[in-house]
């Protein structure tokens, strides 16, 4: 229906704008009074932290791009030019470089939160799947960004990872040639990676928007994993969660600053301070820490194609997780067995990360195979069966009444039919 939006903003200028484009009303609705479960713990900070991290990456990235040269003969020196000659270039660059690590730390904790409290279950399946898309985009962006400084590890990492696509029968070599823009990692590769590294973060912003939009339709999960039943269960987002997120933000920024100012190269590889040399392979080609678990899965399989498929499946399996987990209870708090096994899964992932940092020899091969096995077993076998066998603890009546009285009536899985929050 055409016509002006009826805005109740008192300021006449803002009212004029809001009547024609009700963004102020929308912000008020989505971030002001937005009803949010009142029982979030600090794990619920990490979505906001990830959003801020993305913004930091985009801003620092734009300034880096003003001084960076995407050309194989200039790239390495242009990064050092930023570090040495550009005003506060070292600060911008170290924030961007360590920001990538911080982004993965934050997002991995965010994902763990989702796994532990069952945030992927109905009705939040699509919200979760959009999150997996975000993870994939992040990984692609981070990988291409790591190539840009054109150090030894940039070059050889790019060579190893792009070569993985050659494992696919038939089309494999065509894909690799397309990625490279030639017959080896070279100037065209660097050019297209730079272009895509600039593009993908904005795609990421778009998917993050959808992720948040979907969140605002189905509402947030909470540590109890039960649905919001009445307005008493919720608080307006502002000021309660704006201030709680701000507390987390300060802690996050302290960790970030500690890395940037006191150990900026702690998570990096010394080899990347050597300019790329196609004629000299480093003794050990290791990806950045956040890719180590996938790298370990890849190398735990003797067959290249199978290894590549397993590596991609380790992420893709997350897409179908909402349907693999057959338990209707969301929060691990009320799932006595899942609550233990999720930590075993975390141990497998950390174990894979450690294996990925070592040459695939001796004990590391065995260990990475055990961890890979458990990683997939957890999702593909344990979760479907566990949902049927496990006897969940009694769920609380509601968020505002977290303690169930003496009614030991067994599990009361919250039905999807429960009234959703007032907000549409």
């Amino acid at each position, binding site marked *: 229906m055409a016509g002006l939006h009826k805005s109740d903003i008192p300021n006449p200028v803002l009212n004029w704008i809001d009547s024609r484009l009700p963004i102020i009303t929308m912000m008020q609705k989505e971030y002001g009074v937005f009803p949010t479960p*009142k029982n979030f713990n600090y794990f619920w900070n990490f979505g906001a932290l990830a959003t801020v991290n993305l913004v930091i990456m985009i801003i620092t990235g734009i300034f880096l791009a003003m001084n960076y040269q995407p050309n194989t003969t200039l790239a390495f020196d242009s990064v050092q030019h930023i570090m040495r000659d550009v005003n506060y270039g070292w600060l911008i660059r170290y924030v961007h470089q360590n920001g990538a690590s911080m982004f993965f730390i934050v997002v991995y904790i965010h994902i763990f939160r989702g796994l532990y409290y069952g945030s992927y279950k109905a009705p939040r399946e699509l919200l979760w799947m959009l999150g997996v898309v975000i993870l994939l985009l992040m990984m692609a962006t981070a990988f291409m960004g790591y190539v840009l400084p054109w150090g030894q590890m940039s070059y050889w990492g790019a060579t190893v990872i792009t070569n993985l696509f050659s494992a696919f029968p038939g089309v494999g070599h065509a894909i690799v040639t397309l990625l490279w823009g030639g017959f080896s990692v070279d100037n065209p590769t660097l050019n297209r990676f730079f272009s895509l590294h600039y593009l993908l973060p904005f795609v990421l912003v778009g998917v993050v928007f959808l992720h948040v939009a979907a969140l605002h339709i189905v509402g947030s999960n909470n540590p109890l994993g039960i649905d919001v039943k009445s307005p008493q269960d919720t608080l307006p987002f502002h000021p309660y969660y704006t201030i709680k997120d701000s507390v987390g933000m300060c802690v996050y920024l302290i960790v970030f600053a500690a890395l940037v100012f006191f150990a900026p190269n702690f998570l990096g590889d010394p080899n990347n301070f050597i300019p790329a040399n196609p004629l000299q392979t480093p003794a050990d080609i290791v990806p950045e820490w956040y890719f180590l678990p996938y790298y370990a899965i890849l190398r735990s399989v003797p067959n290249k194609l199978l290894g590549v498929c397993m590596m991609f499946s380790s992420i893709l399996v997350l897409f179908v997780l909402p349907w693999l987990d057959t338990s209707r209870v969301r929060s691990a708090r009320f799932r006595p067995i899942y609550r233990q096994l999720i930590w075993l899964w975390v*141990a497998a992932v950390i*174990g894979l990360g450690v294996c990925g940092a*070592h040459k695939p020899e001796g004990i590391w091969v065995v260990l990475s195979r055990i961890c890979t096995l458990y990683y997939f077993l957890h999702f593909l076998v344990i979760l479907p069966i566990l949902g049927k066998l496990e006897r969940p603890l009694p769920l609380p009546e509601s968020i505002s009444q977290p303690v169930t009285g003496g009614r030991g009536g067994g599990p009361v899985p919250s039905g999807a039919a429960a009234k959703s929050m007032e907000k549409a």
Partner: protein
Amino acid sequence: MRAVRSLLTGVILAGLSLVPAMAQEAPVPPSQNWSFDRIFGTYDLAAAQRGFQVYSEVCSNCHSMTLLHYRDLVGIGLTPAQIKSVAASVTVPQGTDDQGNPKEGPATPGDQFRSPFPNDKAARAANNGALPPDLSLIINAREYHADYVYGILTGFAEPPAGFKMQDGMNYNKMFPGHQIAMPQPLHDDQVTYADGTKATIDQESHDVVTFLAWAANPEMVERKQIGVRVILFLVFMGCITYAVKRKVWSDVH
């Protein structure tokens, strides 16, 4: 169930304790006491200036430092006048003259450090096929960083009995594989320090490594200073924010 948790803790601890083992079979250089180590460490400028002398008189005969300009030397405490005279004492290529012939002349503070060889091939040809690496980032580009470079400079020795050396190679305790193309560069009294410091091989190595550490991370001192202020501010902000959070949430039950 307790068992699962303790098993998990065990796995993580075992995993983490094995991380240092990834450092291969290369020798581990003993760790030295550096002025720039630790959270509040800064560069010992006198050592860095002596190190620049060692670099200029010894290392620069084979090793370039292309990422540095003479003007950067303010970072180790040289005055603009000193920098001008340091630069003027070096002859660098200066493009071409009006006839198109390559031209040379005294450097200015804005010039890059003079490279000993015009290109990599010339460097290899003059060094028995080995390429002396550029030293601009050498401290960052090697595992163990300053300790490694110090270990190499002080690690030359006679090969142990029965150790097979290749032609033209030199034995070094700290070099991976122990055979390094570089002959021992520093000896006692290799340079004469203006400030009267006794030029032992340890002193020279220590000084030049301090200089190279500065060259690799010239922003370090400013970085740490800003970092202290940023973190103090964030801790302060965090406390206030937490207090406000407590206040805002006090009416929630």
